[in-house]
């Protein structure tokens, strides 16, 4: 039984609100007094996953679940889906539009950063159906476990 769960909406292509879900989650974690190193890792994962939805997906949500032994971050969207997950996980690979690259997005580091900063990552995606990414952070560690 989860101790706590909160979900935040993400609107695709909305660069005005982009980043707000991740900031809300960071504020929640800070108010619960989690280790700052852990909060930083979750913030990075939250931001990168939120921006992926803003850039590529349709509508989505970013949720945080707090359990006794772990935090779980889950991002879902109803966007185009990831055609080749292994390719998408490669550092430097990006399908971002040129306009986004000019803004400094699309370096192809989002998914690698998410994998690097979480303890476990699971991606489920189907072309034209959407994507679910689940990231687990084990407690009470601050830095990455094992």
């Amino acid at each position, binding site marked *: 039984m989860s101790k706590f769960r909160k979900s935040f909406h993400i609107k695709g292509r909305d660069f*005005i609100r982009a980043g707000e879900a991740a900031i809300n989650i960071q504020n929640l974690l800070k108010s619960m007094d989690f280790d700052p190193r852990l909060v930083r890792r979750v913030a990075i994962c939250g931001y990168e996953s939120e921006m992926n939805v803003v850039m590529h997906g349709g509508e989505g949500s970013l949720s945080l679940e707090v359990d006794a032994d772990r935090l779980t971050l889950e991002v879902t969207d109803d966007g185009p889906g990831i055609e080749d997950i292994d390719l998408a996980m490669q550092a430097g690979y990006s399908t971002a539009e040129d306009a986004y690259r000019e*803004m400094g997005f699309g370096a192809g*580091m989002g998914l690698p*950063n998410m994998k690097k900063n979480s303890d476990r990552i699971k991606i489920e995606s189907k072309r034209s159906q959407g994507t679910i990414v689940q990231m687990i952070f084990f407690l009470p560690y601050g830095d990455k476990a094992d």
Partner: protein
Amino acid sequence: MVKDLVDNFGLAVTAGKSGLDRNVTDGYCGDLLSEIMGNAPQGCAWMTVQGHQNIVAVAVLREMAAIIITGGQTPDDETIQKADQEGIPILLWPNSSFNLAGRLFSAGVGNPATQ
């Protein structure tokens, strides 16, 4: 403090005046947002040519002291609004990031040799 950088280096303050008393403990340069999210140190003054509003979200998430937009670039109106809301100072520097970073480092910012 951010205010010291403004006074010592003649930086223009374009937003987030309420945050001028924030402590600056390091500096960082970069324009690729994922790279910044992965590496920028807490409490840094971030030098970048990016002026769109997402830089404020990055600065908040990385708990930065301030954003310094360099190279004569300027922030969008939405960026200024967001920075004011969040209390993150946005400063302007007319020359390159390299040029300012060198000056800050020589003056001791993020410089382990002087600490």
